[in-house]
């Protein structure tokens, strides 16, 4: 079968994620968008693995999931602490450091 569709889908997902990072203000949503990008990668990895018959791509997807989970832990901690301080989850509010 043609893997093009999967790859296209993966690229599409990646792009949606990337655009999401750009347009959403809420830190949580931004973070979710990043996760979407990672999952797009997973899709691509799995597709290529299937295409070449090499298992390592599929294994990689699991690695990525674990990494993403770890990222969530760290990310949420950071976002939580900043939310508690600022009473806002908007990434645009945190802009003291500039120029």
């Amino acid at each position, binding site marked *: 079968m043609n893997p093009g569709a999967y790859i296209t889908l993966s690229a599409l997902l990646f792009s949606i994620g990337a655009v999401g990072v750009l347009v959403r203000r809420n830190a949580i949503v931004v973070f979710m968008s990043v996760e979407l990008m990672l999952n*797009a990668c997973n899709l691509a*990895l799995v597709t290529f693995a299937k295409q070449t018959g090499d298992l390592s791509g599929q294994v990689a997807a699991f690695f990525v999931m674990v990494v993403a989970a770890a990222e969530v832990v760290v990310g949420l901690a950071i976002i939580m602490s900043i939310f508690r301080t600022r009473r806002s989850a908007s990434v645009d509010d945190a802009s003291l450091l500039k120029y």
Partner: protein
Amino acid sequence: MTGEFDVPKVEYALVLPLLVVFGGALVGVVIEAFASRAWRYTAQVGVTVTTLVAALVSTVLVGVGLDSIGGDVPARGELVVEGAIVVDGPSVFLWGLLLVLSLISALLFAERRLEGGLTSFAGQAAALPGTDAERVASTERIEHTEVFPLMLFAVGGMMVFPAAGDLLIMFVALEVLSLPLYLLCGLARRRRLLSQEAAMKYFLLGAFSSAFFLYGIALVYGYAGSFDLTAIDQAVSASTAGTPLLLAGIALIAVGLLFKIGAAPFHAWTPDVYQGAPTAVTGFMAACTKIAAFGALLRVFYVGFGGASWDWRPLIWVVAILTMVVGSLVAITQSDIKRMLAYSSIAHAGFVLVGFVGLYSGNATGAGITSLSSVLFYLTTYGFSTLGAFAVVTLVRDAGGETTHLSRWAGLGRSSPVLAGAFAFFLLAFAGIPLTSGFMGKWMVFAAAWAGGAWVLVVIAVLTSLVAAFFYVRVIVVMFFSDPGVDAPAVAVPSALTAAVIAVAVAATVLLGVVPGPVLDLAQQAGAFVR
């Protein structure tokens, strides 16, 4: 399927340094869980220092025992752990360098005298700034000693990053080094708001860039059918023309790595994070992260994509120029020392890229330098000076903690000439004045670039160094030629820890500037990458 189970071969002796560091980190976690609060600091510092020293010793042992495997440029070492890790000359050199710098950073982390007996990390990161909880944490002298194991994890990640023989391991290493750093950035005791903002920015952008990196990996995997750098190299070399898959993959992997080294236009996080993070962490990041990321960049592009160098060299050319120009240019008008140093580190990344892009593998006799050795040497010089400079920044303080505004540093040369002298010396090194390590480093990367045919890049680099020199000189002018303001900051008397850091950094800056021979020889002997 025969059902036979091949036990993966793990060369424990060769990856011992990694095991020691990760083991130490785990011990730190255990200590954090079980040791009483009174002992935690002592125990953590002890474990950290011991771990790093032990890792360093084992690195030396590994380095001494590396087998030579020959080649155009003699390479030493081998692929271990089923090709996941490459223990070769460059890896060992970078390990050693990372461990030494981490050890020095650890001393900065452990400094307690400046904050009245507490470390410079937030007592309780979860406590809101300005609330009772924070005050209690402060009066009860609570400390986040988790920073030490976090740091060890980061060090471990950094060590794996440039030694990874396969892209997946590299990605994991990237995350292992990044995640602790995100946290460490947000742990400043003073100016919590800035610190948290830095952490968040670093985290979001770091994750964002990881995604690019990963997608790049996926594409390359799609092209080569393997994560293995050796296999990728074969695939790349076998084909005569690049395919969109490979090229896009290369570009995206480059984006991920260039983000980590802070190259323009992927540098935007650097100034904000460097400024907001606790200074000790900034120093650690500035020195070690950059080294690890450059190590990875070298490995991926020299080993994996070496066959496609004509495809990616233009990209790196442009990025190098952009990085040098942006870093130098914007630094001119900075008024905050830490921020200025951040931009300076961006400019330095550009200089290293100049050496990197030369792709010079030595002359016919093998007597001279190579691109690889020049970059390794530059990273060494840069690491020490940077750590030293940030160490000095921690010492200039007033009631509100560190005073990093440039105007407050006026007249420092008169009130504390030694400290100001040391800082000026680091600045001169950054500017590349001879008899400092910075000069030697610059010389090497420029020579490698020119030898690789990139003399135009060298000339551009030289001109941007002039712009860069301007802001270093400006700081010297402020420190030495201006009168101190009325509320001049006091220079805190550091404990032996910070003093040692500065002393070591000065010594390294001098020695590498005057007798660079031994270290250069080490970098030379690192030879080429093992494929």
